[in-house]
């Protein structure tokens, strides 16, 4: 009822601007979401500006300072080759963010149209798409990704493709399920009687109604892909040493786990923090984008 309480003499504002302001206000009332956004943005900035932010070349070795710890010169210490851990983590963010965002976008780009077509038209096309999806879903996400990465060959791009394709079935299932439910809503025939064609119905009436669901799935998929990249790199199927990635750092660290556990702790923390931040941000976005939210 806040709309009624507004003074009637209020200056006329563009409704879009008003909605943006409302969303911002709702978002700022959720401290966890704000914290998530800050951390996500920090990682994104790290990824983009890595060359300028990193104090050292991430691959530069310094055999006079191997296993250095907590010195002013190397804040997070160095590894067995004397490479600066902070610089490697900053550069590693690049690989993680790239894989996280690109593979999720790839998965959505492939899966959402397929899922919506299957759910909207039903019939044989639905049977084909849904059954293939079921088969793919019977493989665990990481097994599928590892298998695909092994077939495609080890590189960051192939890791992105492998993780993206592995995330497709889950997105198809969600897009199809949502479409099946939404096509039964009364506003779909209401749009049909007003002359809307199939494309308008699918993209302008059904798709916007599932954005929050897709967003939630994306905020699960992005951290999943970040962890997945670390796993692939750890197994030697992703980023190739000496290029830095959180996964390869963990791989390197495992031989020295007893002498220098911090070599594993810092990249591990980076992975946990990034994954957590995306999840928390996603929860917050889901809450504020729901038009029924009143706060």
């Amino acid at each position, binding site marked *: 009822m806040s709309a009624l309480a507004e003074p009637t003499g209020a200056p006329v504002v563009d*409704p879009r601007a008003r909605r943006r302001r409302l969303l911002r206000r709702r978002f700022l009332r959720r401290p966890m979401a704000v914290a998530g956004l800050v951390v996500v943005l920090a990682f994104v900035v790290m990824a983009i500006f890595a060359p300028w932010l990193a104090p050292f070349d991430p691959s530069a070795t310094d055999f006079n300072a191997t296993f250095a710890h907590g010195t002013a010169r190397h804040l997070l210490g160095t590894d067995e080759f004397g490479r600066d851990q902070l610089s490697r983590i900053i550069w590693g963010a690049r690989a993680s963010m790239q894989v996280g965002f690109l593979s999720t976008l790839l998965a959505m780009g492939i899966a959402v149209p397929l899922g919506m077509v299957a759910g909207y038209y039903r019939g044989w096309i639905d049977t084909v798409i849904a059954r293939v999806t079921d088969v793919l879903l019977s493989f665990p996400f990481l097994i599928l990704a590892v298998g695909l990465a092994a077939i495609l060959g080890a590189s960051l791009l192939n890791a992105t493709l492998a993780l993206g394709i592995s995330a497709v079935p889950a997105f198809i299932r969600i897009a199809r399920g949502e479409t099946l439910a939404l096509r039964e809503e009364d*506003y779909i025939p*209401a749009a049909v*009687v007003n*002359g809307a064609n199939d494309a308008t119905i699918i993209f*302008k009436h059904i798709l*916007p*109604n599932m*954005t929050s669901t897709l967003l939630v799935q994306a905020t699960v998929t992005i951290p999943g892909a970040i962890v997945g990249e670390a796993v692939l790199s750890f197994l030697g199927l992703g980023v190739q040493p000496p290029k830095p990635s959180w996964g390869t750092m963990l791989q390197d660290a495992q031989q020295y786990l007893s002498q220098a556990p911090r070599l594993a702790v810092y990249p591990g923390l980076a992975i946990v923090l990034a994954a957590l931040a995306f999840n928390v941000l996603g929860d917050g976005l889901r809450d504020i984008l729901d*038009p029924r939210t009143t706060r």
Partner: protein
Amino acid sequence: MPAPLLEVADLSVRFDTDDGPVHAVDRMSFTLGQGEVLGIVGESGCGKSVTCMSLVRLLPETATVSGSVVFDGRDLLALPLRRLRQVRGREISYVFQEPMTSLNPVFTVGHQIGEVLRRHLGLSRSSARARAIELLRLVRIPAADRRLDEYPHQLSGGMRQRVMIAIAVACDPKVLVADEPTTALDVTIQAGILDLMRDIRERLGTAIILITHNLGVVADVADRVLVMYAGRKAEEAPVAELFAHPQHPYTIGLLGAIPRPYEGEGTRARLQEIPGRVPSLRELPQACAFADRCPRADELTRSEIPPLREVRPHHVVACFHPGEDGA
């Protein structure tokens, strides 16, 4: 008499289900003139809604529709889908029973009115917005310029039905089909919506097909009434004629079932119900569909389908034994 705006001839609708065919509508014919309000009454499942949905081919693919629907010189049942979409919402538009769920929850009211205007009339965003405000005023929504930016969940049921009507009349259609537009609303709101429908007919000259099971609503708004029973037309007459001289025993039964608390002083007569129940539409009897419930039924009634006959001026009835009294 000028050519009617909409001429439906021999419209039949059959649904092929797993348990065999269901004949929802059997050879319906009717016309609708410019600016006329036609009431279609009948009980649930008699084919009222199916008849109207089939006009612009809104039925699912399990339905087989035959006959012809000539609108403005075009047979809508034969029109290519692309052209038909230009008719839907622009020339023939619909208002449904469910105002609570017929609006898309993620868009503002203004956006949804604007969508139709942009699609059919090619209006720009800003002129669609200006026109949407006009439309909200037309359907008598107060503070229209502010309501425009609200979401459906912020409006009451009656308000939403007004918005649905605004969307329906946005492109100034020639025909408005209102399928039980007041059934989901409470009584005081119903009166307002009916008032609005009358107003729209008067101001825009829109012809209206009003589907309802409520004879009171029909008496209130319609010019002409068509009574349907089991997928067939039972009786059709101008509204005053039908109420004054009902001919078909089914119509007489319906009228007898209306409570009239203020008539006949002291004699609070018991409401009359129609005995029996609606026949299954699975197989169409080669007989009067009402025969099993009819006090006038005889051999003829049970062996032949009664043809439509004009028994009084503009008053047709499908009955072998028409007449006003429950003879």
